[in-house]
C-alpha cells in the first residue's frame, strides 16, 4: 500500500528540530489524505535515531542502513532512497528543507521523473503547496500533476513540531545495495571559518544594515545610529559578501542567529534566510522604502521611507531623548 514517507535528518546525534517540523507537515497531509505516515532515518548506525522517531505517532519507522552511509554524500543518499522508494511506493515524500536536502532531493526526484516542491511554507486542501517567490515578496501555490510520488520539502519554522503526538511505532530495516564506486564525492569534516570575535547573540540591541545602504561609504550612517543607541552593528549577507563588513556580523541561516530586545533592520528586504536568524527578536523595527518588503511581515514598528533621510533623523532623535 502507498504511504507518506517523511525523511528525518540527524543533528548532533538526535533528530533535528526541522525534521520534526517535516513530520508535523506529514501528519497534516496524513489527516488530509488518510494515508499512513512513515518516518525514515538514514545512515550507517541508525538505531538510536529510529527509537526517537518511533516514540512519535507514526505508523512505522524505517531504518535505511549501509556502511557506506556513514557520512552524507549526495550519491549515497540518492541511491539508497531511490532503491527504497522503488520497493515501497510513496504518494508523498516529505523532507526538511536543509542544506543537505537541497543537495540531493532534486536529483532523487529527477531520477524518478518528478520535481521537488521545495521550501514549502504551507499545505492547504487539495493539497495545494505554498512556497515563496521573488525572495519572499510573493507567495505561489503549487500542485503536483503526475502519477508518481510527490516530493515536498518544508521551510524551517513553517510547521509546529511541538504539536506532535507520542506513540510507539514498529521499526524495520531496509538494506540498500551500494558499491564504493557509486560514491563519487569525498566529503571532508565540517569546520568553522575563524574564531568569532563579536558575539551578536548576547547583544541586547542590534542595528542591522542591508543592501539599501547602497555603498560601503554610506556605512557611517548606520554606525552613528548604532553608537547613539549603544547597539551592535549587524548586516544581511550581501553586505558581508561585498566585504563591507566582516562575515561574523552576518545574521541569518548562514550567519548568526540572534534574539535581542531590539532588532532595527535598515534597508533589509527580509528574505527567509535573513528572517530565520532574527525573527525571534523581542521587538523588530524596519526602515525600508518599499511598503511591501517582506521584513514588514515580522516587524512591530515600521517606517516606510528613504533610509538616507530617516536614519540621520532617528540618530538625532535618540541622542536628544537620552
Amino acid at each position, binding site marked *: 500500500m502507498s504511504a507518506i514517507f517523511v525523511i528525518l535528518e540527524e543533528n548532533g546525534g538526535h533528530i533535528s528540530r526541522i525534521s520534526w517540523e517535516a513530520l508535523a507537515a506529514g501528519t497534516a497531509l496524513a489527516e488530509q489524505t488518510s494515508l499512513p505516515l512513515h518516518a525514515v532515518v538514514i545512515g550507517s548506525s541508525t538505531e538510536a535515531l529510529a527509537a526517537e522517531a518511533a516514540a512519535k505517532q507514526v505508523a512505522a519507522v524505517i531504518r535505511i542502513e549501509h556502511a557506506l552511509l556513514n557520512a552524507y554524500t549526495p550519491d549515497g543518499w540518492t541511491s539508497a532512497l531511490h532503491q527504497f522508494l522503488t520497493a515501497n511506493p510513496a504518494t508523498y515524500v516529505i523532507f526538511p528543507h536543509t542544506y543537505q536536502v537541497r543537495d540531493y532531493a*532534486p*536529483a532523487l526526484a*529527477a531520477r524518478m521523473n*518528478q*520535481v521537488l516542491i521545495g521550501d514549502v511554507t504551507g499545505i492547504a486542501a487539495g493539497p495545494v503547496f505554498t512556497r515563496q*517567490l521573488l525572495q519572499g515578496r510573493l507567495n*505561489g501555490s503549487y500542485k503536483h500533476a503526475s502519477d508518481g510520488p510527490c516530493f515536498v520539502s518544508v521551510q524551517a519554522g513553517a510547521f509546529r513540531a511541538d504539536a506532535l503526538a507520542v506513540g510507539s511505532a514498529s521499526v524495520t530495516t531496509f538494506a540498500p545495495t551500494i558499491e564504493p564506486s557509486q560514491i563519487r564525492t569525498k566529503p571532508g569534516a565540517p569546520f568553522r571559518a575563524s574564531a568569532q570575535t563579536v558575539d551578536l547573540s548576547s547583544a541586547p540591541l542590534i542595528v542591522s544594515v542591508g543592501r539599501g545602504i547602497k555603498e560601503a561609504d554610506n556605512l557611517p550612517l548606520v554606525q552613528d545610529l548604532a553608537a547613539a543607541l549603544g547597539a551592535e552593528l549587524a548586516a544581511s549577507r550581501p553586505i558581508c559578501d561585498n566585504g563591507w563588513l566582516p562575515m561574523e556580523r552576518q545574521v541569518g541561516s548562514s550567519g548568526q542567529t540572534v534574539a535581542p530586545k531590539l532588532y532595527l533592520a535598515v534597508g533589509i528586504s527580509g528574505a527567509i534566510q535573513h528572517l530565520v536568524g532574527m525573527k525571534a527578536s*523581542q521587538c523588530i523595527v524596519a526602515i525600508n522604502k518599499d511598503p511591501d518588503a517582506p521584513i514588514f*511581515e515580522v516587524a512591530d514598528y*515600521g517606517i516606510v521611507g528613504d533610509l538616507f533621510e530617516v536614519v540621520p533623523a532617528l540618530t538625532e532623535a535618540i541622542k536628544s531623548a537620552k
Partner: protein
Amino acid sequence: MKIVVAIKQVPDRDAPVRIDASGKWIEESGLQFAMNEPDAYALEEALRLKEAQGGEVIVLSAGPERVGTTIREALAKGADRAIHITADDLGTRDALGVAKLIAEAIKPESPDLILTGLQSEDLGLGQTGVILAELLNLPHASLILHVEATGTGLKVKRELEAGWFQEIELPTPAVLTIQSGGNKLRYATLMGIKKAKTKEFRAVSAADLGQSSAPTVTLGQIALPSKQRSTQILSGSAKEAAAALVEKLKFEARII
C-alpha cells in the same frame, strides 16, 4: 579547462512587483532585468579558473529575446562565447523541464565543469544545477564558495549552515552550484564591452532541443503574503516618524 556557466536573467531586485492579469505571474512589461546574483559569482569563479588554468568559458542562458542583454554582459566580463536557448514558454515548464533543455544544449560541448548559481532570485527553486548533474550523470556539489583544480579533479569549499564549512573532493567532469560571496565580482571594462560584440553568440531554439514533456508540478496562483505580526507603521516626515519611533521604543516597548 572547458567550463559552461548557466546564467539566468531575473527581474531586477528593486523593480516593483505587480501581479499580472492572469494572476499566475508578475507584470513583465516595463520591468528591469539583471543577471541572477549567484550566477554572477559562478561566472566570476569560472573566469578565475580560466585565468589560472587556461581553457574556455561558455555562458548559457535559456529564456526569451531579452536575456540577450544579460548574455552580452557575461561576454563583456570575459566569457569566450555564448549559447542562448530561445524559449518564450519557460514559465510553463517545471524545474525538470528547464533542466532538460539546458542539459541537451550542454551535452555536445562535453565540458569539464558546469557551474550554476545555487538559486534563482525569482523562482528560488535552488534545484536546476543538482537536476542537471542527475540528467548528465555527473557528480556534483552544491553551495560552493571556492573551487580549486587539483590535477586529478577538484577540491571545493562548501558552505554549511550557521557559519560552518566543508571541503569536498570530486572528479571532473562535474557540476557545481555556486553560492554568492566567494569572490569579489569584476566589472565589465569598456574594452570588454567592445570585444563582446565580436564573440560567438549561438542561438538554439527549445523546439530544436526537442524537450517538452508535461510538467509534473504546476504553479497556480500567486499572491502577496499575509502579515504575521501587526506592524505599526509610523508615518509623517522622516523627522516626525523618527520622533514617533523613539516615543514607541521608550514608552510602549520600553527598550531605550
